[in-house]
C-alpha cells in the first residue's frame, strides 16, 4: 500500500510536468490552430540553453533567467513570426509538418552544438527524502508537484480572473467576434505563444534534473503531452491538466503492475480508446463540424 502511494506521488509529479506542457500545447491549438509536433523539443531546448549559460560562467539563477528569456525569444516570438505566421493561412497540415521538420532541426542543432551525450542538470528543489507521518517521501517529487501546481494555478488565475486572460479566451473561442468587440487579437495570439514558451521553460527546469538533459529526450515528452492534451480534451485548459496528471499516474502504475516493457503502451491504448469513444476528451466540449 505504501508502495502504491509512492508510485502515485511520483506519477503525479511527472504528470504535473506533462500537464504544464500539455496546457501550452492546447493554448497554441486554441488560439492559432497550431499542432506543435516540436513541443517535446521545446521542453528539451531550454535546459541546454541554461547549461550553455552555466558553461559560460553564469551562476544557476542567472542561467535560469537567461534560459527563460532566450526561450521567450526563440520558442515564443521567433516560432510565431518565422514559422507560424507565414504558414497559418495554408491550413493545419502543412504547419504541423513544418513543426515536425523544426523538431528534427532543434534535435540536430543540440546534438551538433552541445553534445550527443546526456548531461546532468542541477535540481531546483533539494534532492532527498523527508519524513511525513513517519514515511519517507521524495522531496524532489513534492517540490516538482508544488511548483507545477503553483504554475497551473497562476495560469488559470491569469486566464479566468484578469482582463487579459479573458481577452485571450475570447480570442480562442471566436477570433472574428473578438476582433469586432475591440480585442487586439494579434497581440493575444502572440501572448499565448509567449506563455507557451514560459511553460516549456518551466517544464524543462523541472523535468531535466530527473531525466538528464539529452537531445532526444523531447520525443517521449512531446508524445506524453499530446496524449495528455487529447485525453483531457483538446480544447480545454483544465482538461489538459487532468490529462497530464492522469497520464503520469497511469504510466507509473503500468510500469509497476503491468509490464515495464509495455509501460509506454498503456497511455497509448488509453489514447486510442478515448479518441474512439469520447473524442472530445474527458473534460472537453465537442467541436462542431461545418459542412
Amino acid at each position, binding site marked *: 500500500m505504501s508502495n502504491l502511494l509512492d508510485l502515485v506521488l511520483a506519477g503525479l509529479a511527472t504528470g504535473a510536468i506533462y500537464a504544464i506542457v500539455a496546457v501550452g500545447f492546447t493554448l497554441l491549438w486554441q488560439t492559432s490552430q497550431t*499542432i506543435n*509536433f516540436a513541443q517535446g523539443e521545446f521542453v528539451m531546448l531550454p535546459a541546454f540553453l541554461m547549461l550553455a549559460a552555466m558553461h559560460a560562467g553564469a551562476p544557476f539563477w542567472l542561467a535560469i533567467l537567461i534560459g527563460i528569456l532566450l526561450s521567450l525569444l526563440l520558442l515564443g516570438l521567433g516560432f510565431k513570426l518565422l*514559422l507560424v505566421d*507565414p*504558414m497559418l493561412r*495554408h*491550413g*493545419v*497540415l*502543412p504547419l*504541423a*509538418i*513544418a513543426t*515536425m*521538420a*523544426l523538431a*528534427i*532541426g532543434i534535435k*540536430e*542543432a543540440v*546534438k*551538433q552544438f552541445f553534445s550527443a551525450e546526456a548531461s546532468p542538470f542541477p535540481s531546483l528543489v533539494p534532492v532527498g527524502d523527508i519524513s511525513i507521518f513517519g514515511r519517507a517521501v521524495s522531496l524532489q517529487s513534492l517540490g516538482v508537484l508544488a511548483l507545477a501546481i503553483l504554475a497551473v494555478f497562476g495560469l488559470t488565475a491569469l486566464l479566468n480572473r484578469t482582463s487579459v486572460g479573458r481577452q485571450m479566451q475570447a480570442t480562442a473561442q471566436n477570433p472574428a467576434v473578438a476582433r469586432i468587440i475591440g480585442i487586439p487579437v494579434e497581440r493575444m495570439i502572440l501572448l499565448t505563444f509567449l506563455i507557451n514558451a514560459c511553460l516549456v521553460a518551466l517544464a524543462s527546469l523541472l523535468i531535466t534534473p530527473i531525466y538528464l538533459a539529452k537531445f532526444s529526450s523531447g*520525443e517521449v515528452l512531446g*508524445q506524453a503531452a*499530446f*496524449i495528455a492534451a*487529447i485525453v483531457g480534451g*483538446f480544447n480545454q485548459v483544465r482538461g489538459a491538466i487532468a490529462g497530464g496528471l492522469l497520464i503520469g499516474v497511469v504510466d507509473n502504475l503500468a510500469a509497476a503492475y503491468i509490464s515495464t*516493457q*509495455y509501460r*509506454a*503502451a498503456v497511455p*497509448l*491504448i488509453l*489514447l*486510442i480508446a478515448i*479518441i*474512439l469513444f469520447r*473524442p472530445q476528451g474527458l473534460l472537453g466540449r465537442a467541436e462542431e463540424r461545418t*459542412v
Partner: protein
Amino acid sequence: MRELKKYWRITLGIVAILALIVLPLGLNRYGLFILSQWAVMTIAAMGLNLTLGYAGQVSLAQGAFVGIGAYAAAIMTTQGMPLVAALGVSILLCFAVGWLLGYPALRVQHHYLAFVTLAFSTLAFLAFRNEGWITNGIYGISNIPRPTIFGFPTNRPLPFYYLCLASLGIVSVAMWWLIRSPWGRAFLALRENPIRAQSLGVDTRRYTLMAFAIGSALAGVAGTLYAPLTQYIDPVPFNLSLSLDLLMMVIVGGAGFFFGPFLGAMIAVLLPEWLRFTEGYYLMLYAASVIVLLIYSPTGILGILDRLATERRTKTASALRASAGSSLEAAP
C-alpha cells in the same frame, strides 16, 4: 501546342526511365544501396500519397506498415520460404491491419486521426521490440537472403537494384491505373468533400477503409523489399520517425500529385547524401529547407510547378482573349 507538350512529357519520362536503368551501371555498392533505398521508400510514400494525398486521410503509421512487411519478409525468408510468398503474406497482412486502422477514420478526422495512427505506430514499434519470440527483439534478424528471380540471383547490388526498380515500375503502373479508375475518382471525392460524396452515392465508409488498406499494403510491399535490401533488420528503423519521414516525403514532393512521392523520397534519401560534406549539419539543413519550402509552397515542389503552369495558362488564355477581342473589333 498541346500535342507538343504531350510528346515532351513522354520524352522526359523515357529519358528518366533510361537514366534510372543506365546510370547505376557506373555506381559503387553504396550508391546502389542508396538508389535501391530510394525506390523502396518511393513505394511506401506512394501508398501514403494514396491515403493522404488522394483520399485525404492523415496517417502517421506508414512506417509501422513498412516494419510489418519487413518483419514478415525477414521471418519467412530466413525460414527458407521464397520472397514471393512473403510478399503475398505482407500485402495481405498490411491490407488487413490497414483496413482495421481505417475504422477510427470513420469516427474522427484530421488531427485526431493523426494521433490515433501515431499511437498505432508506437504500439507497433513496442511489439517489434518486445515480442522477441517472433521478431528476436532488439537483437534483430540477420542473414536475410536475397531472392532468385526467374533463375537470376540478386545477391549482388546491381541485380537487386533492378529488382527494386522493377517493383517500383509495377507499383507505379498499378497506381496510375488505380487513380484513373472510378475508385481513384471516389478517393478524390472523399478528400474534397466527404458529405457531398456521400450524398452523390459514393460509399464513403468503404472507400475510407480501402484508402487505408491499399496505402498500407503498398507499405508492406516496400517492407518486403527493405528486409532483403539491408539483409538485417531490428526495430529501430521502424519507429515513429520513419512514419514522420514518409509523411514529410509526401508533403514535400507534393501530396496528391502522382510524381510527388518520387521527388519527396529523392529529397529525403538522396539529399542527405549530397549534403554529407557538411558533416553533422546535414539534417539541420534538411529540416531548414523543408520549412522554407513549406512556407513558400505548402503544396510541395510539384505545387510550385503546378502554380507556374496555371499562371502561364491564364496568361496565354488572356492573351488569346485579348487578340481575339481586337480581331473581332477589327473585323467589320
